[in-house]
């Protein structure tokens, strides 16, 4: 199943199951979505439930919040996470806070879908990852779907949660063919152990999952048996799964596409040292994007983010430097 098909299936089934589910965003209707995620939904559910909006991100989220207060379950699509900066006030100051401001009387069952990440030569203004920003906001739930299975079950959960969810996707994943697993007990807040191993825990999420899997093949050749954890949920963070893995492997590497300083990895490291400092046999290694706006030039673009090659190199270097 294609990643985008899994998202489409989740929205389609949710809309069929519950009339209060609506979607709105730029080109979600007649055009079928910028990444074909909402393909076929306009003709199936009509313009009242599949709403094409003007290019005005603040109003998309603002309208969606209004709908949510009035009893609907809106799914707002922001074309890319880069444009969500325009909707920040609505997301942070309104969506995230209404439950608290109203003393729990009002909930905002809103899902804001947005793709992000470094795609191919979209340059600095269209290549950002803002998961760190959203993950630092109390009142928001932040989910990051790296695969078709989580895209389907995670998005369905997000739609039917009564709190606002920022649902992060990655632009390079949409056309990828992926294995789809039927799940019976699904917990959107649980991290996935992608591969079990005993020597080293690698924590990652979104598209970096695939770079880590590539790197793993080489690390295996070098005799390193890695355990790979895909976070799935960035807020709340499944620190239990992480801590249990580190208790076993004693070593941890975080691989993230986003910039290093103040990134997701920094928060994870902080929580690891709070939770399992005495299990660590080496400093935690962060492999992250460089602290620069993403360059347009393809070679520089690849230099600015982790690649399988770089992941392998950095891990081997870190092991050598630490004598582990």
């Amino acid at each position: 199943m294609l990643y985008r098909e899994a998202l489409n299936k989740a929205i389609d089934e949710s809309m069929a199951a519950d009339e209060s589910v609506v979607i709105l965003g730029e080109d979600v209707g007649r055009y079928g979505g910028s990444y074909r995620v909402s393909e076929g939904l306009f003709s199936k559910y009509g313009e009242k439930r599949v709403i094409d909006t003007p290019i005005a991100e603040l109003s998309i989220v603002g309208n969606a919040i209004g709908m949510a207060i009035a009893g609907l379950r809106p799914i707002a699509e922001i074309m890319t996470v880069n444009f969500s900066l325009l909707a920040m006030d609505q997301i942070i100051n309104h969506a995230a806070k209404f439950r608290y401001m109203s003393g729990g009387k009002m909930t905002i069952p809103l899902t804001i879908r947005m793709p992000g990440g470094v795609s191919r030569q979209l340059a600095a203004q269209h290549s950002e990852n803002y998961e760190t920003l959203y993950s630092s906001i109390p009142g928001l739930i932040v989910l990051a779907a790296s695969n078709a299975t989580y895209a389907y079950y995670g998005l369905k959960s997000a739609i039917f949660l009564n709190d606002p969810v920022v649902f992060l996707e990655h632009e390079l994943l949409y056309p990828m063919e992926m294995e789809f697993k039927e799940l019976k007990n699904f917990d959107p807040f649980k991290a996935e152990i992608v591969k079990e191993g005993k020597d080293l825990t690698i924590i990652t999420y979104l598209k970096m999952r695939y770079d880590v899997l590539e790197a793993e093949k080489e690390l295996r050749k070098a005799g390193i048996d890695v355990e790979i954890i895909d976070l799935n949920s960035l807020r709340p963070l499944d620190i239990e799964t992480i801590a249990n893995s580190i208790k076993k492997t004693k070593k941890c590497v975080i691989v993230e596409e986003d910039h290093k300083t103040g990134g997701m990895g920094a928060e994870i490291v902080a929580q690891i040292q709070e939770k399992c400092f005495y299990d660590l046999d080496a400093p935690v290694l962060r492999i992250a994007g460089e602290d620069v706006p993403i360059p347009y030039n393809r070679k520089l673009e690849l230099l600015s983010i982790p690649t399988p090659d770089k992941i392998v190199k950095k891990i081997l270097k870190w092991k050598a430097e630490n004598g582990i």
Partner: protein
Amino acid sequence: MEYKVIMPILSDTMDKGKIVKWLVKVGDYVKKETPIVEVESDKATMQVEAGVEGVVKEILVNVGEEVPVKTPIAIIDTEQKAAKTEESKPQPQTQSKEETKTTVDIDEILNEIISSPKAVSGSASPAAKKKAAEYEIDIEELQNKGELPKPAHLKDIDEVIIKKYFTPKAAKLIKEYNLDINNFKLDHKIRSEEVLNYIKQNNIPKITKLTPNQIAVIKNVQNSIKKPTFLIFEKINITKKEGIKLTAQIIKALALAMQKNPLTRSVLKENKLLTYPASNISVAVSRDDGLYMCVIKNAEEKSLNEINEWLKEIKTKRLTIEDLSGSTFGISNLGMFGIERFTALINDKDAGIGAFGKMNEGEIKVTFTIDHRILNGVEAAKFVNDFKEEIKNV
């Protein structure tokens, strides 16, 4: 000149594109900006322009087919255009630069790193300190004595624990069997007997890595079992010669019989039968470093003494590829181990193999395994009879 129209990259995320509709057919004249095809990407359907002026020579991808980006989808002959409009120059093939796939070269990385010194300081990792405290190990003292590296890690503490609680012999077993020391009660010096007892009680395997030769043998026998074979059971009469190994006599007789039966000097290769003039025989040789199918070349021309010498040399000589290839028939002899009769698996591409048992009053039981693709029953019977005649005279 031929210009290849490629599947364009229509969006930043497009890996593959599907041909929705061809707007031109073979033989059509197109201008640079003529739309020639409709392509569906992950985002949308778009028309693709020819890119050059010319005549459509070939359409490579049919409607409905999906191909990766940059795959040629059509060929335009730009020469034909030149005849019509001479002033315009042919368009250079401006394809977007191929993105070099990032490949990982472990050796290169390791070489780069191997010389880099330990960059960290401090006495021990948190995990190492925790474990050291548990086992009452004084990290500082051991580091002052130079018995622990600085900083110390878990593996270093584990070694200290092993040294402290296990005799050297027992420690060796711990490594050989990859045992977890936590399975032992660490309150006394543990001797090898205790470790062996634990290994026996829990039926723990000793781990030995296969050698490249063993892996090659496994591959060879697995291939062999796939061959359509049949068996011929026979007895041969042989007079043992003083100072000559029986195997040498068998090789000589087999080499002569092979000269009379070209199919036994043949191998199959891609629907062709390659028949060689020489009797090159693969011989199962048990060496200190394993079992090898060593090949004796032109055995038909060699004297018994020469073959006998070869059999002695091959036991210890350093083997090359030459020593292990080029055979068309094989033998295996287990007679010296007292085996009555057995069957053997055909080596590599050989036409067959003879398995020889022990000598009993001048008689040896032999089983030939024959590749039926090369020799049929009649041909094999004739060969075996020729061999029986030859063995009487060597």
